[in-house]
């Protein structure tokens, strides 16, 4: 099975010749009638070349070193780590504890404070619902932001239905929250503040240290969804005064299906567990810990710690290269999110007068996305872009470029050139672009219905 589907992707020198061209459905941007073309899923044929992967915020490939660490536990050392009576259990438990230490070392925590979960979604659910429900009798207010991940917003919605009072803080146009506003919003009955460290759609880095100070001074628990930040920027939960943190395995070149939750012990954070059972993981998350996945997560964290500096400088260099190429050739391109307070590997660009879906279809041989993977099924523009106040038409034409550990200069160059060519081509076809070239201000036009 595997032999047939291992297809060599030979971009680089052979890119122009070997590319498989398809007929693009021509689409012109029209403000009056927005024809949304849904991108139909199509499987890659036998000898077809695979697209370039530039979507590292959606998921990342597993590092070969991580796979190497996991394989023995998938094949030979398959014991249940909670079996206390035989060697299979003991060796599996030893591997699990070693992985726990590796995860803890990456974030500056104690191994006893790490709980393995099935992913960042479960960790977010656990922290929000768990803290809220535990302190329900005295504290009924929770603060979060409008640009959080869907799982956080959905958990808050459920809590609202249970009778909690949630404040969704707005963000400024650069994607960062206003610290003064946060301070004013904290009430005596606030139990939790949840702000994500690095946003998955626009890549902005929130001022987590300052938020931690504010929360500690007002004795409010601080939860951060650090799925996109762990292993990419240095994090220390003690310096930043974080009480709860969600970690995702498949965003840091680890396996899918595993994550972790950091729960502070001093001062103790109490949670009401969502998953009941045999009391594993300090009673917070019952269920057998998947040893191979936990080992993979631990290995991924250790590798991330060693490679952080090299990866960060490389990703910054590639991001600067991509941005410079695109911005120098194309006018009217907007970078969504703060230019300085960001993780360089996540670039969200809005191309004015071009429709996002048609640009994605035109860039068929690069795997990109507009908006996050969990919202790509709907045709609405992303709520994150709406929260930072982008115009409706710019929000529809945004593309997210993800750069990671395995991206090469050739891939970035190819993506940039292809993007420039396709945007120019689509703009040629656009009547709005014609009007702008003639000097008409689009905002002054009164569109009529017919």
């Amino acid at each position, binding site marked *: 099975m*595997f032999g047939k589907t*291992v297809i*060599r992707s030979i971009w680089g020198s052979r890119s122009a010749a070997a590319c498989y061209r398809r007929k693009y459905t021509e689409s012109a941007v029209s403000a009056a009638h927005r024809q949304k073309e849904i991108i139909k899923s199509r499987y890659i044929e036998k000898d077809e070349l695979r697209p370039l992967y530039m979507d590292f915020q959606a998921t990342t*490939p597993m590092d*070969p070193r991580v796979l*190497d660490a996991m394989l023995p536990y998938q094949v030979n050392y398959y014991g249940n780590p909670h079996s206390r009576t035989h060697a299979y259990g003991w060796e599996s438990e030893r591997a699990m504890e070693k992985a726990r230490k590796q995860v803890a070392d990456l974030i500056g925590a104690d191994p006893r404070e790490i709980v393995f979960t099935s992913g960042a979604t479960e960790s977010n659910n656990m922290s929000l619902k768990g803290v809220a429900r535990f302190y329900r009798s005295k504290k009924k207010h929770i603060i979060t932001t409008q640009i959080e991940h869907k799982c956080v917003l959905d958990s808050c919605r459920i809590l609202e239905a249970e009778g909690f009072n949630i404040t969704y803080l707005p963000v400024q146009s650069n994607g960062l929250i206003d610290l003064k506003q946060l301070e004013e919003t904290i009430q005596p009955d606030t139990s939790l503040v949840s702000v994500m460290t690095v946003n998955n759609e626009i890549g902005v880095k929130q001022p987590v240290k300052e938020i931690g100070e504010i929360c500690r001074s007002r004795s409010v628990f601080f939860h951060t969804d650090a799925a996109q930040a762990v292993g990419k920027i240095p994090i220390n939960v003690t310096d930043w005064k974080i009480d709860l943190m969600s970690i995702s395995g498949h965003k840091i070149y680890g396996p899918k299906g595993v994550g972790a939750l950091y729960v502070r012990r001093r001062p103790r954070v109490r949670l009401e567990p969502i998953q009941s059972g045999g009391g594993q993981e300090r009673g917070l998350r019952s269920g057998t810990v998947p040893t191979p996945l936990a080992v993979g997560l631990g290995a991924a964290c250790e590798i991330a710690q060693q490679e952080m500096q*090299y990866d960060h400088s490389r990703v910054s260099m590639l991001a600067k290269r991509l941005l410079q190429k695109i911005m120098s050739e194309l006018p009217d391109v907007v970078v969504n999110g703060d230019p300085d307070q960001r993780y360089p590997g996540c670039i969200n660009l809005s191309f004015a007068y071009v429709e996002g879906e048609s640009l994605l279809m035109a860039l068929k041989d690069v795997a990109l996305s507009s908006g996050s993977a969990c919202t790509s099924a709907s045709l609405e523009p992303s709520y994150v872009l709406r929260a930072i106040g982008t115009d409706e038409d710019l929000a529809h034409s945004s593309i997210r470029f993800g750069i990671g*550990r*395995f991206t090469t200069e050739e891939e970035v160059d190819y993506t940039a050139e292809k993007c420039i060519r396709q945007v120019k081509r689509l703009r040629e076809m656009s009547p709005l672009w014609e009007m702008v070239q003639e000097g008409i201000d689009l905002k002054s036009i009164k569109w009529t219905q017919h």
Partner: protein
Amino acid sequence: MASCSRSHVISLYRMLMKESKKFPSYNFRTYALRRVKHGFRENQHVDNPRTLDMLLGQARESLALIKRQVRCPPPPLPAQPFCDAEDGVHWKQ
């Protein structure tokens, strides 16, 4: 020490590059080649023999890892029965 001699280091480097070229995936192949080159270049002026030993040990482990991984995914094995063919009852030892 003999194991830290220049020729030994260079032969280790060559072996690593040779094995890295065998990755079927473009991204892993380019990453391995780039990272190995960077790793050796970064540490070319290290003098302390203990550090050198540790670094060379890491390089050897990486070589073994790459050798294992370039064969991944493994070629499909012929279907192996869990139990002995004859009686269909006893586990294969």
